[in-house]
């Protein structure tokens, strides 16, 4: 009885508990916890600021109550010139994460792609300034020229361009909900 049941169970329990607690210790001691939820680190924000919100002084992580599957983070500008909203949308090759700058009256100040799985030098062209500049100053629901909107899609990458535009609309939508709490 002992040999066949108790010993194996005991050994497996000891091993899993040891591994589990060691991991838990390293996780808490090394403070990985706060690293994980930070989303965009301060360094990333500084780097993206020029293309997202040139006028802003410095972007700080702001906690908001809005819960949305595609919302990754909200970063308010201390100078009060606007907010940057970090969203994820479904691109052609996979997730497409965009940081969108919105000024106080809800118009786009700029945007930057933080993570993309689009096909290299085709879908990924949506991240280039030439395409993004079309959104600056605009607000409300935007659409690609193929869908009757005024945004000129990147040649041959309609799906990526449509995904990027949906992302911008999503960010503007969230801004409306979040505006009160900033």
């Amino acid at each position, binding site marked *: 009885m002992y*040999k*066949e049941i108790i*010993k*194996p*169970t005991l*050994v*497996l329990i000891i*091993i*899993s508990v040891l*591994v*589990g607690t*060691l*991991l838990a210790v*390293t*996780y808490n001691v*090394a403070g*990985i916890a706060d*690293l*994980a939820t930070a989303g965009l*680190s301060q360094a990333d924000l500084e780097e993206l600021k020029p293309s997202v919100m040139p006028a802003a002084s410095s972007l700080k992580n702001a906690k908001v109550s809005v819960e949305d599957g595609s919302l990754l983070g909200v970063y308010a500008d201390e100078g009060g010139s606007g907010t940057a909203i970090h969203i994820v949308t479904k691109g052609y090759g996979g997730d497409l994460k965009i940081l969108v700058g919105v000024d106080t009256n809800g118009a786009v100040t700029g945007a930057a792609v933080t*993570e993309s799985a689009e*096909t*290299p*030098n*085709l879908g990924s062209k949506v991240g280039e300034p030439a395409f993004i500049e079309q959104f600056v100053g605009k607000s409300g629901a935007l659409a690609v020229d193929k869908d009757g909107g005024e945004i000129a899609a990147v040649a041959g990458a309609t799906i990526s361009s449509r995904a990027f535009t949906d992302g911008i609309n999503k960010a503007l939508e969230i801004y409306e909900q979040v505006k009160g709490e900033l």
Partner: protein
Amino acid sequence: MNYFRTFTKGLIKENPVLVMLLGTCPTLAVTTLAMNGLGMGAATTFVLVCSNVVISLLKNFIPKQVRLPSFIVIIAGFVTFVSFMLRSNFPELYEALGVFLSLITVNCIILGRAEMFASKNNVRASFLDGLGMGLGFTLALILIGAIREVLGSGTFFGLSIGDWFQPIGFFSSPAGGFFVFGCVIALVNVLSNYKMSSKKIGCASCPNASACGQAEKGEIAE
């Protein structure tokens, strides 16, 4: 126990990727950039060496019924530990490897070496074997990663090789991965003038051969 041969056999003669064809999932997935190949190789080597050592230490205490789960928990523990280290020190590598970092646990090489080698040999041999296999894996990954990066995005370890070259998108796509891997193995066949490729893929190189009752029926898994 010739320790030197244990170490070197993993590098060329029994290279886990190019000869035994184990661990092909990460080999194809993360080698879009040579740097990713290096990162994945290093992480896998670390996990492989540590798990080999720990498993060869515990091999007499683990009863037969719970052998596989215990090995896997130890390996998964090391993989999670490595993912902590990467997440804090090399965030962009952590992003690049993505889900494949935690898939190292089911990497056929690690469980294979644990079952076939570590659970039968002493700590020193297991350590060397893990190191050899890990380095062999890393070399293969860097080789394939470099080829795909140069052809696919015109850079080598991030340094552009000049704008005269128009990068071919095919090579950084999944299909390119299969293609480059196939050509590299064909090259290995030629270089080793066909000695290596005679090794059947059957049960011999399967990580679970020792634990699986059907192992002697080689041809089923052929």
